[in-house]
């Protein structure tokens, strides 16, 4: 028995207000550790999942839809204590502050919790979007590069809580004006954030990484 088999399967929700949520659901459903991956659009649906993925899309759009449909408080409460992974726009929502690249600065609502500040659209506009391999800490077969898909991607500008934020991935080389070593994925306790889109690859190792992290977290809370 591996450690993984001792954990209960989990039900994972994917926030489905706007963006690439079905792509996440497809990859999560390939994992034996996941009993079911489902779309989450309101407070009733979020109450029925063990962990949440906030997908890529437009962070301003997702925040405005959640707020206007009265879902924001339940979402905020969930991410405070339950395992949540934000990719791209999702990571922006889990950050404490957007330092540049946002125009709705005052109004952009953030869930917070990851202990980081974000630079939006760090690489430029869409024509600068790219794919490049990354070393991601803690993945299975870690020697195999993970395909990083960066689309109008943000980067982590600053780690605000260095005592408990763990760097998960950095850029392997300079891309345009963004230097090698720039942080593109972090973990803090039950939260995970990545600037790139694992849902736009067929490689499910990041999804497995998150699901195991969520299972460990849930097991540690029930002790």
């Amino acid at each position, binding site marked *: 028995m591996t450690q993984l088999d001792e954990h209960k399967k989990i039900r994972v929700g994917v926030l*489905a*207000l*706007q*963006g*690439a*949520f*079905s*792509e996440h659901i*497809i*990859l999560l*459903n*390939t994992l034996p550790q996941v009993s079911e991956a489902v779309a989450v*659009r309101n407070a009733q649906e979020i109450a029925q999942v063990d962990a949440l993925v906030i997908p*890529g*899309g*437009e962070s*301003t*759009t997702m925040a*405005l*839809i959640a707020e*206007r*449909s009265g879902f924001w408080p339940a979402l905020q409460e969930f991410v405070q204590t339950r395992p949540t992974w934000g990719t*791209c726009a999702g990571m922006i929502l889990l950050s404490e502050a957007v330092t540049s*690249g*946002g*125009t*709705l600065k005052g*109004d952009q609502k953030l869930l917070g919790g990851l202990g980081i500040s974000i630079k939006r*659209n760090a690489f*430029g*506009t*869409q*024509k*600068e*979007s*790219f*794919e*490049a*391999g*990354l070393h991601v800490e803690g993945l299975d*077969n870690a020697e*195999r*590069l*993970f*395909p*990083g*898909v*960066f*689309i*109008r991607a943000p980067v982590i500008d600053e780690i605000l809580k260095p005592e408990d934020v763990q760097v998960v991935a950095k850029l392997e*080389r300079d*891309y345009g004006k963004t230097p090698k070593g720039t942080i593109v994925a972090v973990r803090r306790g039950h939260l995970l954030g990545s600037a790139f*889109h694992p*849902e*736009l*690859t*067929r*490689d*499910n*190792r990041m999804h497995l990484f998150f699901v195991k992290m969520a299972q460990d977290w849930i097991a540690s809370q029930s002790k």
Partner: protein
Amino acid sequence: MSFATPTNLVPTQNAGALSAASEVPEVASFNVKAGLAQMLKGGVIMDVINVEQALIAEQAGACAVMALERVPADIRKNGGVARMSDPKMIRDIINAVSIPVMAKVRIGHFVEAQIIESLGVDYIDESEVLTPADESNHIAKHEYKVPFVCGAKNLGEALRRINEGAAMIRTKGEAGTGNVVEAVRHCRTVKAEIRKAQLMDDSELFTFAKEIQAPYHLLKETAKLGRLPVVNFAAGGVATPADAALMMQLGCDGVFVGSGIFKSGDPAKRAKAIVQAVTHYKDAKVLAEVSEDLGEAMVGINISELPEDQLYSKRGW
């Protein structure tokens, strides 16, 4: 650059396969072009003609804006040749909002496309709403780093555009009419043709490809996926939250709203309502709530009353 089926658009057997990734970046690959369209799914893209409207759209929850000088309803009213917008106006909008900005170029006008690409626009719409610059050829779209969206009224047209490099498709509908009937027709036509293709064996597919003038390899991929092999939005005539939800329930991935918002009585309120309707498109209770008290919708046009030469959906080859 060439076509590659967008990742995880539908469940696939090889999900979970390790791919060979290189540290050397591949900029503007088809995967990131089609990928941006995947990020726009479940969202509303709104036509705006200035910074003020762009900010209203962003505040309303638009997932992108389409910058253009005149909305289709005005192009229809004013007549004359409709061209790409003033680069200054497009740049002002890019600087004003954080969401993606799209802009239109005329069918076949590859220099307008070069100009718009240089501005740093996130998507180009090679659009039948503008006056075509070439009556035989569309732009060779794989050559650009910026992705393209194109209109289509049937499967053959959609696959020809994808073959030329379009990374996203939308229905043509009949822009500037506030009448959703053509968008519904185009969406249903594409779906019906895909279902037909799914039942065919290989030799029949060759013949069907010839019949609808579609590249065989894209037709085969479409039949395998059971849907268009790129993100597919509704466009052309969407005026109400119910119209938007109708197109979503018919299987579109998201919605463009052109004249429908800023030609209505209360644009901000209508824009917010359409955004909610696209997220909660299956929830009739939410749709009823957001449809309440929206003020006047744009005055619609009955398409059967339009003369043949004023039908934009006939443009494109």
